[in-house]
């Protein structure tokens, strides 16, 4: 049987994704070592390669066929619209994309509103639906900094517990998109490696069902 390559995101989905890989048969201990700077991990027995990438890079690897499977948040899929198969809701990493800020005023009645976000497409769709005229500023991380330093009036970002917002004196104005981790696949890989990919998918499906009976939690927002 041929090797399967799985792209796993760094960050908040990482630990839960390792548990899934362990269940499927990939010994994930080698990925847990903090000093480890390797980005590709191979297991000859499980016939799997695991690559660790940035969250937003997972769909790119999968769409171009560099990875057969990927694990990524629904928020990233909705933002990037990759041409991939979206197979399974893994039911961890639950969080919500929210408009947040320091201003209590309704942004509809403000002029020159600037919104900082990692999600320009989803944010722009939401803002125009809400009738808010805003300029979107694309950032790559630590979005909460933007209103603190006057770069933007509001932010659109993922919120799980709300702790980070609170610590930075920001509050949720409106939640608008729910997300959780998804298993995605390259459609041509699916044709070329159908048997081994079906087996992986079936194990992942059973894992999700078993866990949803107990406690499927974990979040990938802050």
């Amino acid at each position, binding site marked *: 049987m041929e090797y399967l390559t799985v792209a796993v995101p760094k960050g908040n989905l990482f630990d839960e994704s390792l548990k899934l890989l362990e269940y499927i048969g990939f010994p994930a201990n080698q990925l847990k070592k903090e000093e480890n700077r390797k980005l590709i991990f191979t297991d000859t027995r499980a016939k799997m390669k695991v690559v660790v990438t940035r969250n937003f890079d997972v769909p790119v690897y999968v769409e171009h066929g560099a990875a057969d499977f990927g694990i990524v948040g629904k928020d990233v899929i909705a933002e990037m619209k990759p041409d991939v198969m979206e197979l399974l809701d893994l039911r961890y990493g639950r969080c919500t994309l929210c408009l947040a800020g320091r201003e209590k005023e309704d942004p509809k009645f403000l002029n020159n509103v600037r919104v900082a976000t990692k999600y320009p497409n989803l944010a722009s769709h939401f803002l125009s639906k809400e009738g808010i005229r805003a300029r979107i500023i694309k950032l790559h991380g630590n979005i909460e900094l933007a209103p603190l330093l006057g770069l933007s009036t509001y932010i659109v970002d993922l919120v799980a517990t709300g702790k980070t917002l609170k610590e930075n004196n920001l509050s949720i104005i409106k939640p608008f998109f729910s997300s959780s981790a998804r298993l995605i696949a390259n459609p041509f890989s699916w044709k070329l490696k159908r048997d081994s990919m*079906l087996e992986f998918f079936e194990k992942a499906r059973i894992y999700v069902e078993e866990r949803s009976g107990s406690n499927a939690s974990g979040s990938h927002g802050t």
Partner: protein
Amino acid sequence: MNLKNELSLPAGFFDLEFEKAAAKRRLENHFADIFVNKGYREFSPSLIENYELSDFSLVPKNKIFKFIDKSGDILALRWDYTTSLARFLKMNSEKISFPLKVFYCGSVFRFFEGSMGRPREIIQFGAEIIGGDVDGEIELIKGIFEFLKGTGVKGLRISVSEAEYLKRLLSAEHLPAESLEKILHAIKCKDFIMLNELASALFPEQREDLFDTLLSGKNSVDFRPEMENFLEKLKNSLFNIPVDFDPSLVLDFDYYNGPMIEIYDQNKTSIGKGGRYGFLSKMFGIDKNGFGIALNLNYILGL
């Protein structure tokens, strides 16, 4: 705009420098030789079309590059060849005799967000036969594979499907049009999570068959005899190329009305796609079926 931006190309476009341009020229000549020998004639439509023509195309309107000329007309950069050919046939229907066999080599332009590394200029080589029969269609596919063999692309494979296969599988005549549309949209987006929810609610009995067909490649309902005939001839003509079944290839039933194929390779890249279309009759009043395949030369040229 700073100097750096002025001197760069927008994302998704490319220059063909020296060797690449020579390679494209060689491939064009090779493609033309094959199809001229099969009695095809070259078709080179204008690069600019009226934007309204996109009403007759499967390419989504938000993927078309459009602009306004000085008189206020909305124009568009060519987004595919088939729609331009249909427009040409409608304009010249009295002068044309069928079957009409044409080939083309050139660029089409589609808008994609820049971050996924998708090209916005796609070099397409393709061939179309209008008013032909199954043997003509197989001959066209053979020409396409003769060309591909000469390009050195390894591990070629074909996926096939048939228009309305999914409609039969879903017993679509019993489904409200709106529900069918939602299901087809989920299949088009390859969103199996949404599809599972819809199928469980709308047709729980056929849910398993649908998933077996889409994921396991199981043939849950039979092909029509005409499709069986096409498939047998295809396999006999290309005996060493693996053929698999992918019902999700045809989701636009107003456009396609027969066999559909997609050519891909071991690097998981779609190299070409096409099939039999009936939209000429439905949308242009030309009572002929067409069959065409367009190849993506960006991949072959390594762009």
